[in-house]
């Protein structure tokens, strides 16, 4: 039996033939498929013009790995775990990317409404913030900040990082 596939198009026009089951991990694509009934049409292309080729490739790799996962979504904020949950070794390796790529994945996952990937990436960003000084947070996430000059001239960027924390 042939598995049904659809074509997803990235912002650069690259087409990804994808199993319907994998694509349905995204609520946005699922709604599209239900609304327009394109899964029976082999030539139908779903345009995702705000998602780059690299990011779409990463997201589809994640979706393919997690396609058989049970949907464990919990309604309401009461059950939301604050503590970062244990990230699986596969996910940890998958998200070994720089902060720019990670934020791109968050934006794409938000647009495509992939709840599992969003929760995972939020936890990874929270882990990156953990134990860091405000200056380090600004540095890692490219947050512009006018560094005020110190008493003896201009404070260099690296001086902010080499000052020890209170241990």
């Amino acid at each position, binding site marked *: 039996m042939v598995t049904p596939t659809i074509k997803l198009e990235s912002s650069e026009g690259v087409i990804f033939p994808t199993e319907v089951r994998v694509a349905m991990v995204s609520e946005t694509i699922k709604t599209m498929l239900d609304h327009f009934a394109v899964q029976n049409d082999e030539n139908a292309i779903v345009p995702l013009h705000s998602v780059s080729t690299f990011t779409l490739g990463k997201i589809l790799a994640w979706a393919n790995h997690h396609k058989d996962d049970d949907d464990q979504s919990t309604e309401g904020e009461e059950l939301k775990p604050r503590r970062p949950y244990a990230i699986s070794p596969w996910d940890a390796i998958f998200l070994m990317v720089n902060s720019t790529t990670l934020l791109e994945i968050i934006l794409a996952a938000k647009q495509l409404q992939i709840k599992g990937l969003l929760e995972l990436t939020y936890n990874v960003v929270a882990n990156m913030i953990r134990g*860091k000084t405000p200056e*380090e*947070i600004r540095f890692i996430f490219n947050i512009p900040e006018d560094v005020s000059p110190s008493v003896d001239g201009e404070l260099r960027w690296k001086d902010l990082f080499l000052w020890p924390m209170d241990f």
Partner: protein
Amino acid sequence: MAFISKDFRSPGETWIKTDGGWERSKVLECGGKRKRHHSEGSSSYQDSDSSEEEAVMPPHYHITIRCTREIAGFNGLSEAVKRLDFRRSVRDRKRFHYICAFLLLVSNKGIASLPGSAQRQLLQMVEEVASHVNDSQQHPNVLRGLALKLEHIVSQENQKCWGKPLGSTYLWKEHMATIKRIQRVASQIEIREPDPEAKPKLHELPEECVREIILCIADHRDLESAAEAWETMAKLVSEQRIWRELTRFHFNQRQIHTILDLDKFKQMGEIKDWKQIYHQLRRTYGVNDDYQFAEVLALCRSCCCLFWPSDGHPCIVDQSPDYKQRLEEAGGQLALAQPVPPAQFLKYFSL
């Protein structure tokens, strides 16, 4: 004539020559000859030669918790550190904070009181931290703190014995060289300025995304650091929901109600300042610091084995005849592993 047989009380010891000298290789009678299959999903074991087994066996260390007549309660820190692969774990994002906390605790207690091999191991780990910080461009303040601690230890040791450290001259010469290398790395770290062209940036994320990220942070100090980093984060951190969730994560209903009753509040809805309530609860009950580590060492209760939860360990509990019975009594769920924070880990070595 005495009956000569295998001593049932001891698993026996074998010694292997390595680059760093002779190392003890503890062979477990029950689990020594077992090997995990290479297939990812399988957890069964099969017999094989020990060289293959060593390559596949996840890092773990058997410790003695209680002393008996037969077993002397001695655990070697250097052996534990080596067997649990601490040095390589420094580069693991999930274990970095745990190992740094462990190194800080050890250096606070003073490394001079440790055996020579343990001293060497710990300094090699700090050197690995220095190398990792230099490569990853993250946590230079942690490295700086460790370097200052080492400097303080050296100055303390030099006052002990007529301006020289107490102990092996050769060993301390080696230590001094390692400490100098660590300090050189700490002072030479070049933090590259962020690329102004790189997109997207954190401050370009939608507000609801940033709020969700904040909700995953479980330490008030991290929330305050994030708030200082940029305006939007500060605005979100000041929201009552953030502090309410943080309070509910750390404290149970009874503790919260105790504070509310003290403040003459009867209902949670009447609370206006959850941040104040959180800090009041924190001062009253304290908060558990274990959550700050993404991965914590675990102790298997059945085989007294320390291991990293993400790697697992070769447990022999399933061979125990009463295990199934205990499992049924517990309703199919038996908590066999307990987390071991850095302070608890050091207690196993009488530190």
